[in-house]
């Protein structure tokens, strides 16, 4: 090689799992060792540009042996103990960075909860006691009226199977009740959002309800409360779906005249007792498994059938948020009254130590959420006003969204490539164009 010895050179080959327009020629090329992520990205972009003159430059992230490159290449190889003699195989993926910041969706008060599981709608809960359904940035289609206190948690019951334009959702509030809502997705297309009354009120908690989760198959609901209990509720949505037309009829007939009469009172099917403090977050990923995080410093896994406490993760801090996902949908991510986001692997026997710890936040973590499709990506929101995107393959945040002016109280993924977050600045922020896949 005719190079000056000041600068080491590395033989590298760029590979990718991305689809053809992103495929670079697989031949090995020589690159300087001091090149950083930006340099690698430039190289790949020029390679792609050589193959396709219409190529538009875009940022990439690079993986070597399954780890994201976050420093100069020679330092990375030195730190990881990888030989620079052999031809290096560098995998490139699209950089997970939001491309666009949408217009904020304004609320009347702090945004306390958000659910983006349905790709057509965003459901938010607010401190003014109203739930809101958004069709996009700044487009509010429905307002859910009924709660007498702050809404703490929201969940869409049928995010995937919207039949006859009927969207069911549930909200939990500090007025100790949960309410079920049913709305016509075709309504409220005009500027005026449609006002919806609950079709069912679930009473049974003796203190503020802090969290709610839905089993997508059976449409059952579980809710966690300050009375330390987890209650399971039957929503009758699945049965009601059969005669949804009649419900809709009844709804349209009576309309706004006596909406309270339409409300059915519900009672809990069963109660999971075991926590000693507030149940702050719930996840119901499978039919028979419920995860619950609590301020008593534990995350418990419950058998929904028997109501037994199967296993628990103990940490020294109160938990605020919980999410289950990642590899095989088994990794448990949780954050609490500490700036560290921790991830446990419950499949690992005999240890309760977290497998990953991410500590870039500077204040309490208020929300965390796995990406539904990716094994590696999750987001976290914190009281320091930042939403961070994480990749398990690196210890640094992949991206930091600092669009909020105050504490971020809730955050979620939406449509697999958007990050939605609400906070104390009374705004719902949508950061779109996050190329996770």
């Amino acid at each position, binding site marked *: 090689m005719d190079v000056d010895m000041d600068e080491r050179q590395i033989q590298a080959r760029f590979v990718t799992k991305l689809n053809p327009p992103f495929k670079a020629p697989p031949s090995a090329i020589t690159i300087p060792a001091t090149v950083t992520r930006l340099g690698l990205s430039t190289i790949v972009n020029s390679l792609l540009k050589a193959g396709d003159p219409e190529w538009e430059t875009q940022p990439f992230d690079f993986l070597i042996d399954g780890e994201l490159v976050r420093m100069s290449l020679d330092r990375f190889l030195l730190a990881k103990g990888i030989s620079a003699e052999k031809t290096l195989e560098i995998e490139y993926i699209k950089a997970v960075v939001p491309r666009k910041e949408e217009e904020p969706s304004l609320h009347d008060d702090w945004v306390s909860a958000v659910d983006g599981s349905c790709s057509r709608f965003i459901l938010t809960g607010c401190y003014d006691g109203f739930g809101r359904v958004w069709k996009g940035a700044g487009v509010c289609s429905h307002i859910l009226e009924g709660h007498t206190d702050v809404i703490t948690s929201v969940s869409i019951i049928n995010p995937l199977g919207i039949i006859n334009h009927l969207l069911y959702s549930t909200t939990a509030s500090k*007025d100790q009740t949960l309410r079920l809502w049913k709305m016509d997705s075709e309504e409220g297309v005009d500027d005026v959002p449609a006002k919806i009354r609950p079709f069912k009120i679930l009473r049974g908690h003796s*203190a503020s309800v802090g969290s709610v989760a839905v089993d997508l198959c059976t449409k059952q609901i579980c809710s966690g409360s300050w009375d330390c209990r987890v209650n399971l509720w039957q929503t009758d949505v699945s049965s009601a779906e059969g005669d949804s037309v009649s419900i809709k009829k009844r709804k349209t007939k009576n309309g706004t005249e006596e909406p309270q009469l339409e409300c059915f009172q519900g009672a809990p099917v069963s109660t999971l007792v075991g926590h000693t403090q507030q149940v702050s977050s719930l996840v119901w990923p499978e039919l028979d498994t419920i995860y619950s995080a609590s301020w008593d410093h534990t995350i418990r896994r419950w058998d929904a059938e028997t109501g037994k406490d199967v296993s628990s993760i103990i940490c020294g801090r109160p938990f605020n948020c919980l999410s289950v996902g990642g590899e095989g949908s088994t990794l448990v991510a949780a954050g609490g009254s*500490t700036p560290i986001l921790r991830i446990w692997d419950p499949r690992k026997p005999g240890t309760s130590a977290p497998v990953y710890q991410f500590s870039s936040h500077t204040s309490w973590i208020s929300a965390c959420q796995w990406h539904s499709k990716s094994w590696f990506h999750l987001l976290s929101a914190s009281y320091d006003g930042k939403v961070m995107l994480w990749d398990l393959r690196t210890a640094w945040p992949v991206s930091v969204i600092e669009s909020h002016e105050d504490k971020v109280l809730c955050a979620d993924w939406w449509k697999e490539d958007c990050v939605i977050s609400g906070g104390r600045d009374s705004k719902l922020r949508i950061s779109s164009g996050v190329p996770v896949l």
Partner: protein
Amino acid sequence: MGVSAPPKEADRLKTTVDENARISDEFDSEGEASEGSELSEVATEEGGGSSGDEDASTSDGSGLDDDDEGEKGGSGEEAEARGSSSDDEDASATDNDGLDSVEGSGDSDSERSRVFEESDSSEDELLEIQLEMFPWSGTRMSHILDMTLKGRITKKERQDKLDSFLANVDDSKNWRKIYDDYNDEDVELTKEEAKMISRLLNGKAPHAEFDPYAPYVDWFKWDDAIHPLSNAPEPKRRFIPSKWEAKKVFVVKYVRAIRKGLIKFDKPKEEPRFYMLWGDDSGAADKTNHLSYIPAQSQSYQGPVVSISTEVSGEWIASGSTDGTVRIWEVESGRCRKVWQFDEAVHYVAWNPMPELPILAVSVGQDAYLLNTGVGNEETQRKLGELLYVEAAKVSDDSNNPICSWIQDDEHGGIKLRHAKTVSSVEWHRKGDYFSTIMPADILFLLLFSLAIFRLYASAFYVALTCLSRESKSVMIHQLSKKLTQRLPFKLKGIAVSSVFHPTRSIFFAVTKKNVRVYDLLKQKLIKKLETGLREVSSIAIHPGGDNVILGSREGKLCWFDMDLSSKPYKILKSHSKDVTNVAFHRSYPLFASSSDDGTAYVFHGMVYSDLNQNPLIVPLEILRGHTTFNGRGVMDCKFHPRQPWLFTAGADSSIKLYCHN
């Protein structure tokens, strides 16, 4: 002779001179002309005397005639010289001296020694013999005699520097030559002397043969001694009482008095022991392992937050401020949920310990309010509405004068309890039905309370007030369900400061400035009296087990009482530099905390063991800084979160802070 009439100051020498003069009186009259100094006269007389003796010798024989002539000639010369030098003696002397030294530079030592011998003036024969030995003229000799007898030692003229240098350059032994100033001579050291000097300069013994490390010879015979070295009898001082110990009795008295608090000292001024080496500590919050988290809108307070109280589940926290507002905050997010505005400053807030009774007791001015917080579902609210309802103004009076009246207060949504005096604190019983209120004194006294300047003045008033009140009018116990009020049926010897109910049993702690009285409410009697020894108790907290009490005092001390152990403090912690404003125990963790006007809060580990033989373990853990002092007030209140190891502090800087472990 003029000498025969000497001045008064003539001494013994003078008289001898006179005698000599009388002897030589008839012999010679040459000395008459001399009117010089006494000494010169003596010299002349002696000279004359010697000539007188000589005269006798001439009468004896003729063989010495030549000598006689010479001597006479000498004396004649002497007289001449004196005649010339009679008017200015000193000038002539120096002239002569100069002449002498110039001409007689070769004078030997023997001549000088002879001059000294001359001054003896007794051995005349010797003098004569030595005079004979010198073939010098009489004139010169007389000069020498004259100068010497005046008491001056003539010194050799030092050589010119250039000359001495030139002379020394050639001399190889020059380095060994020393000038002896005393004897006015140059001394040449021998080789042995030079070596001795070099040894002395090196700090060694001057003689080479001296052995500094000679073996020690113990000359005393120690073996077989049956008597002590000193056989002196025991001194008397070992049998009489010590004066110092007699003084010590008084010292002990003083120590006891100080411990009891009878003698008070001014607080020593505490200087800050540490200073920031690298500028201000604005970034200190990041470095400490504590998360300081200020709830939102807490800055909306206008005055200092004086009291906080957590709800039993830890979801809410209530706070009261001197600007007359009472607020409820959500702990998790720091959101202000509800605000009440009162006309007067709020003194105390207390949340009902029952979770199904979300009632807040507030003391404002002369009133104690029971407020419906609005937390909970409809049924709870309905129950509360029934509970917090008084049909008409109900006046509770034990005797002829009403002590407290229950009035419905629709403006704030609750009940107002109108007291006769300012209510300083409200405490709930654990079951949430009874609560106690404290009226320490008039509002005037309360103000004085807070002003340290008038403390002495105020305490004088307190004493007077104590003497007046025969029963405790300052502590009230109210029952919410029956809307009843009664006085504490015991005498409180002192001004009530605070009160608290036992966490498990029906025992009531009434705190006065000097001590704590523990009453059994069922048996209606005094169980115990805790002697604090403090100057002024400010706050009390009871361990959830009920057997341990901590008190905070206005001199910055914390007292831990183990009630099973003693009625005296088990431990006194002097931690704060200013008044302790509040003390708090954690409900489940082994923690307790104190807050102070110096702007800090201390967190301690306070482990109480169920084993009665084991004393409580107290370990200071953390100093929490973060509040700024405002008008001399720092942290006004501290409360633990009921379930988490978190500490809330309320500051005079109008903020509430939450400290978490990290």
